[in-house]
């Protein structure tokens, strides 16, 4: 299936901004099950320069500078992506979580060395005994890892309340674990911290959901979790909706946590007070034929 995503970020300022530098990660990456056909980035006012590169994790990053004084900055990323159905593995056939833990600990090949870096504390995710205790009921001895991951996602989905104004991006995951409320970023951070506390590699995925009023997280940028399973690779799971992403999830970028894949960030000179508005639309592409 082919999807078209339109991601618009608008900054409005009370005072003019005379200079701003920005970094955006809004171009979906190509993966085994998705292929980026077209990507277009529109910025108003016109930036002085625009440079694309790949970051440390292979995500596309656009850097740009605006020097025209402005009170509104609009960034629109439009992408057309071809999506394959996910070939989901059978959870009960996956290796036990202890096997995964020990395999990664030895990191004998490039793939497991790559997974190894997603085991440690990062700015937004600090593994701790509290997270380990939270994860443990999902990981009894010798349970296949994917069964455990699916169970953990289910427990977050049922045990946490989706509450858009309960947290900010600065709320530590440990507090979210206590309060049991938050948004997709928070649930993803909690789940990643829980997995890493058992020495299981987990990464943060930022992306879009196909527009659908019944799904939480559509119409804004979304986030979910990916867990490492040797022999299969990275297994995506969305604890906010408690689903294994299939054709409705469009992957943009991944990293250790939100900080590695922030969709848009910038530093502006001047500007006074500012507000940010974000909209995302993902619809099936109607081919001309």
């Amino acid at each position, binding site marked *: 299936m082919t999807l078209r995503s339109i991601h618009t*970020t608008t*900054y409005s300022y009370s005072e003019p901004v*005379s*200079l*701003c*530098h*920005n*970094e955006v990660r809004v171009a979906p990456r190509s993966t085994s099950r998705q292929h980026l056909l077209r990507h277009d980035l529109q910025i108003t006012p016109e930036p*002085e*320069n625009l*440079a694309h*590169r790949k*970051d*440390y*994790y292979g995500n596309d990053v656009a*850097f740009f*500078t605006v*020097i025209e*004084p402005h009170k509104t900055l609009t960034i629109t990323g439009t992408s057309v992506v071809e999506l394959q159905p996910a070939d989901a593995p059978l959870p009960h056939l996956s290796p036990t979580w202890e096997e995964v833990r020990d395999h990664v600990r030895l*990191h004998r090949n*490039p793939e497991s*060395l790559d997974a*190894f*870096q997603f*085991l*440690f*504390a990062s700015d937004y995710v600090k593994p701790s*005994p509290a997270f380990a205790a939270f994860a443990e009921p999902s990981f009894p001895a010798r349970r296949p890892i994917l069964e455990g991951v699916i169970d953990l996602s289910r427990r977050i989905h049922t045990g946490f309340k989706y509450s858009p104004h309960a947290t*900010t*991006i600065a709320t530590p995951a440990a507090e979210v674990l206590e309060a049991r409320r938050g948004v997709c970023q928070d649930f993803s951070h909690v789940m990643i911290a829980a997995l890493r506390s058992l020495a299981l590699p987990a990464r943060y995925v930022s992306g879009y959901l196909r527009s659908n009023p019944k799904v939480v997280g559509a119409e804004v*940028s979304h986030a979910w979790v990916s867990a490492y399973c040797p022999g299969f690779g990275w297994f995506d799971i969305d604890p906010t909706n408690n689903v294994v992403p299939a054709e409705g999830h469009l992957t943009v970028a991944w990293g250790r946590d939100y900080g*590695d894949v*922030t*969709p*848009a*960030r*910038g*530093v*502006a*000179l*001047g*500007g006074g007070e*500012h507000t*940010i508005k*974000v909209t995302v639309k993902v619809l099936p592409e109607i081919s001309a034929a």
Partner: protein
Amino acid sequence: MSLPGEAGLREAWDYQPNTAHYDELTTPQGDVRPYWQPLFDSLKAAGPDDLAIRWKGAQRLIRANGVTYNVYGDPHGADRPWPLDPIPLLIDPREWSSIEAAIAQRAQLLNALLADLYGPQRLLHESLLPPELVFANPSFLRAVHALPVPGDIRLHLYAADLARSPDGQWWVLADRTQAPSGAGYALENRLVTTRTLPDIFRRTRVRRLATFFQAYKDTLLGLALTRKENPRIVLLTPGPFNETYFEHAFLARYLGYSLVEGADLTVRDRRVYLKTLGGLLPVDVILRRQDDSFCDPLELRAESMLGVPGLVEAVRAGNVAIANALGSGLIETASISAFLPGLCRSLFNEELKMPSVATWWCGQEEPLQYVLEHLSNLVIKTAFPGGAQDPIFGAKLSASEKSALAARLRAAPHLYVAQEQVSLSTVPVWNHEGLLPRYLVMRVYAVPGPGGTYKVMPGALTRVSASLDSTVVSVQRGGGSKDTWVLGVEQESEFSLLRPPSHIEVNRATFDLPSRVADNLYWLGRYVERVESGVRLARAVLPLLSQESDPGAASGLKIASSILSGMHYVRPNQRLERDLVSMIFDSDRRYSLGWIVHEVRSLAWLLRDRVSNDAWRILNRLEEGFRTSRPPESLQLLEASDLLDQTILTLAAFSGLAMEGMTRGQGWRFLDIGRRVERSAQMTDLLRHGLAGPPADDPGALSVLLEIADSSITYRSRYLTTMQADLVVDLLLTDETNPRSVAFQLARLTEHVAHLPESQQREGESSSRRRPESKLILGLLTSVQLADVPDLVRPGEDGLWNGLPAFLDRLSKDMRRFSDALSTSYFSHALPSQQLRHV
């Protein structure tokens, strides 16, 4: 003066080190080591009195040159005098060559390590280094991975702390890889010590430091990526509150680079520019004294306001080089040391020449077991840089603390590293009782030469402990420092950079002036002038207080108190005499003279690299005069008038230096604009408050006014003893030949403004209309030139001055508008930046 008594004289050289430690001066048998003998004999021959006198001279030099360091967390900690011991540490030439070879090897090894970790990471794939040391390390900056680096050199200055164990072996205690400090202090120590012991220094063959700094300059010059002919190199400092700000200013001056803060730089079109009065000037190389993560709030630590947004992208585009390369803090950690012998063998196929202090990284099973079994003998540290915790000394822990620590180690072993407790060598330090042994740590430096081999500075920054009770060797914790004399002949011609001005690139062209510096110079000018006018005011009033029998004094005192309270120097309803003393001495009181003088010194500190050493000494003397505590009440008036006289002379010396010693660049211009603006504002206020009463030709009042305005002699030479208000006002307001008059200041300001650079290149501006400051100053000058003085001072219908008060009020208001317009046009770089974050 506290010189040792007779008994002290006999015992002064009786030095008794603890034999459990290696002593640098003496052998275990108590003999002076042969290479120390000449120095020791010379010191002994000169005698302790001589050393004490020389030493006092050196202390004066340190204070006068403002060699300081800042102590964090101490409210009185700002710029303390740098503690330097007079006796250098000597290093034998043969011993030095093995230290030199070991440091050069280590620098090269660490550079190769960085090149791999920020590149292909072969060392991780081949299991030569545990990947935790990179992946779990908060100093591993993924944003700078694979960034272009000229010549694959990341360490452009490397430092190592060395210590000597009881068997005489040197060990590396720690590596400094991102922005090593202290090389400038080592140089300053050399300058002071050679002036303290010039004869001894001449007789001893000591290797010079200058070639090392020349090599450093060459390295930085070679980093310019595009404009290789005449690149602009800047030294980026976190600012005056940094612990070693003095050193930043000192090195910038010595190496001939502009000292800049993050806010002085901006990124456009993926290039770095210096914001100056003349517009944006491209920057090619940044010598940074700022930690990695603070360099760019966009890609590195978001909350940093010290950095330059977009800097990483400019490096990525290959448009600017940074020394040391961003990310080099990654290996500034003890845990790496444990792996260096193996890495040296696999990368260079050689043995590591100098061992690190024994180190166990706990992230592996065997070392962890060893550490758990030997906790009592080890020092436990966090494995990664920036670990907030102080080292834990296993020996000092109780049984329960020990088992708690063991539990923490088992829970997250990769976060800890253990080291053997170090035994340090001792060296004599001088105090007025004689020679005392103190522990020492020697910091040595290396820079890469052509071909990537490292050149080691033939000298070091030696730091000594405050006592023998603690092995903590830190200037922050009350220790001291020493010059380090590496003995031996020069291998090549060595000369001092401070010698010929021609060798320091004269790169201080006037358009190079950062806007922030212009702003500070302007305010320095204003504050210096404010001190002067305050002093003149106080000095004119003091005699009046003690001559109440004089018939003219009563009206003089009346006008003086009207001026003093009008200009907010004294408070209403206070005894004039007491409040005047407080206005002079009480530096806690806002706008007192002591307070303003303190502000002058703080501003000069911000301009430390721009203010000449002579000017700095003058400002230090100025502040010292006011810093001494308030004299007892009986002596206050007497002391005050001495201090005021002295201050006038000191200020005259400063003005003289500024007039004669500064090039007529934009820097001088802004300093002078500041003075002129302040002087005309003060004079206008003086006239407003001095002539506030009913119009009268009161000779007592008018002569006080002339005295304060420093114009009595001019007036008398013209009009003899006749006192007439219109003549006084003419002299002080409209006479362009009187250097104290308002008209004189406005005429100078008009000239200055005409010479200021055009502003179209400045940030956030695009047009070049006639600038507002230029319109305002022309208007001010014309209104004063056209003023009809006899008409202004004639009694009006209401019995008050006809038009004078309104005229002066307008003048004063327009002066303020002029000052604001200048700020907007030239200093408005300081707009606050903000983070824009997705939510």
